């Protein structure tokens, strides 16, 4: 017994216990418990019954849920744009010129700021009699006010733009780290062999940046499907169901209508969609071939 107490195994578990305990309660338990929960009609208001797969059946007939899944998939369209722009920004701020650190910091400001603040700022910039409309009119680009957030054909794209605006700096910084980790002698060796600037990019920069592209694509994909804060603060899913994303819908069912069983079922379905999408991204990257971005 005393031998066990002095062994590496014991010390290891002693180190890990507090962390693993909390992980068990707040990471593993929710995954496990949401499955039986999804098979019931659990809500705060009435008695709980086992309902089998009824919730799942209802979900696939629930027009709003299907719309919310569709909106979330549309939201994923920002992923390639986000990656392309942040890589270009990273290349730009990788220049060694005076004052570049100030620019890097400036570009990171939206990342540091809370989504609530960001959403408030943009809601005013884009609202009625707003600055953006005024500036666009002054520039002669539009002739009358555009209702950016209350036009159902525009609102979702405006939210996507805001999400992208806030995220650019974050991915830029990750790619900058990637660019700075590429050994300079690789470039010098290639130059000695007479490689052109373009070939340096294609044969050195892009291949070595690939792990970063995979990492950033995955996390931005998850973030796009989980998008919540900006939608909740700016449009609450409206107008109509134009910006109803899946996480907002699950939140409405769960935390506003206390329909815990149904919300759990919806969560499991969306979770499956996320799993499929991440597998696709992994596959796409493992196959080699053309790098999507």
């Amino acid at each position: 017994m005393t031998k066990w107490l002095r062994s590496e195994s014991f010390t290891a578990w002693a180190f890990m216990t507090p962390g693993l305990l909390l992980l068990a309660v707040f990471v593993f338990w929710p995954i496990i418990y949401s499955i039986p929960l999804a098979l019931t009609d659990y809500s705060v208001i009435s008695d709980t019954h086992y309902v089998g797969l009824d919730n799942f059946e209802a979900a696939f007939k629930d027009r709003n849920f299907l719309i919310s899944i569709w909106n979330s998939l549309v939201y994923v369209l920002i992923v390639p744009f986000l990656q392309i722009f942040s890589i270009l920004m990273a290349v730009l701020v990788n220049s060694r010129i005076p004052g570049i650190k100030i620019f890097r910091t400036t570009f990171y400001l939206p990342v540091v700021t809370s989504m609530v603040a960001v959403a408030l700022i943009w809601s005013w910039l884009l609202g009625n009699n707003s600055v953006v409309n005024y500036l666009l009119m002054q520039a002669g680009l539009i002739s009358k006010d555009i209702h950016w957030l209350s036009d159902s054909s525009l609102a979702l794209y405006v939210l996507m733009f805001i999400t992208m605006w806030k995220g650019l700096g974050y991915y830029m910084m990750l790619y900058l780290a990637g660019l700075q980790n590429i050994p300079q002698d690789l470039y010098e060796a290639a130059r000695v062999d007479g490689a052109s600037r373009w070939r340096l990019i294609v044969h050195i920069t892009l291949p070595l940046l690939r792990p970063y592209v995979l990492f950033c694509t995955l996390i931005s994909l998850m973030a796009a499907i989980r998008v919540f804060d900006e939608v909740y603060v700016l449009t609450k899913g409206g107008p109509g169901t134009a910006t109803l994303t899946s996480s907002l819908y699950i939140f409405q069912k769960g935390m506003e209508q206390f329909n815990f069983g149904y919300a759990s079922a919806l969560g499991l379905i969306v979770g499956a969609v996320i799993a499929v999408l991440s597998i696709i991204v992994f596959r796409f990257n493992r196959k080699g071939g053309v790098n999507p971005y």
Partner: protein
Amino acid sequence: MNLQDDKMLQSPLPKNENSRIIRNLGRVVRMTVIYVLLVLLALFLMGPFLWLLSVSLMPGRNIFSTPPAIFPTFIDFENYAQVWQFMNFPKYMLNTVIITALGVIFNVVLASLTGYPLAVFRFKGKNLVFTLLISTMIIPSYTSFIVHYLTIQGLHLGNTYLGVVLPGAVSVFNIFLMRQTFIHIPTDVRDSGKMDGASEFRIWWQLVLPLVKPALAVISLLEAMSFWNSFLWPIVILNDTELYPLAAALTYLNGQFAYNFGWIAAGTMISVLPIIILFLFTQRYYMEGLAGAVKG
């Protein structure tokens, strides 16, 4: 590619005066293009904040003018004074600081405690723990907040800061980040500690942790940002609006005083300034750590 590399590309002795002038001209043009792009991007990414600052300094009638005002006709701190009095900012600020500090401490301690054995110890069950951790990344827990809500109520932690902080107190991402960092610590460090008869805990605390400060800085800053800016979970868990952190109080203010633009602008400025200042002071360590962490 950067300018320094281009200099290296140039042959040490120019063939003639003309080509040198052309090269210099080319460099000036390139620099100008880069600076123009940088300034445009800065305007795009910082412009909205500058405008917010501008609005927060406008006297009331200025804000609702047509065409919309972009710069105040005269600078006026009235909005700040009024919203400060109305909202009891020191209290919300204190709430936010408590929540943020708790969240950061939990994350730093738990991630470095849990990640350490996974990097340097040999023990039974290591693979099991590893597989479990990775599985959480593959199986997304999308409905966590519903079960979290039930768990927190079950633990009787509703309406407490601990209830706000606990679900985010440890993250698999941070554990991995710390493990990746610990792996690069030379084994000699631990061995020399053992020779001197130090306990594993002391080795971890006094010898190893000081070596991974950049990674600790990354976790601290990322978690500080996320707890400082959190608003939804606090709203769900706290019944008492007196306990709200700033971001939550801000949505509350926005709901109540949507008409009072200047107040909300000033309130928003007050809420974002502390975290921006924290970032400005710590960004050096943060950038360094981030680069090291991703390299892993």
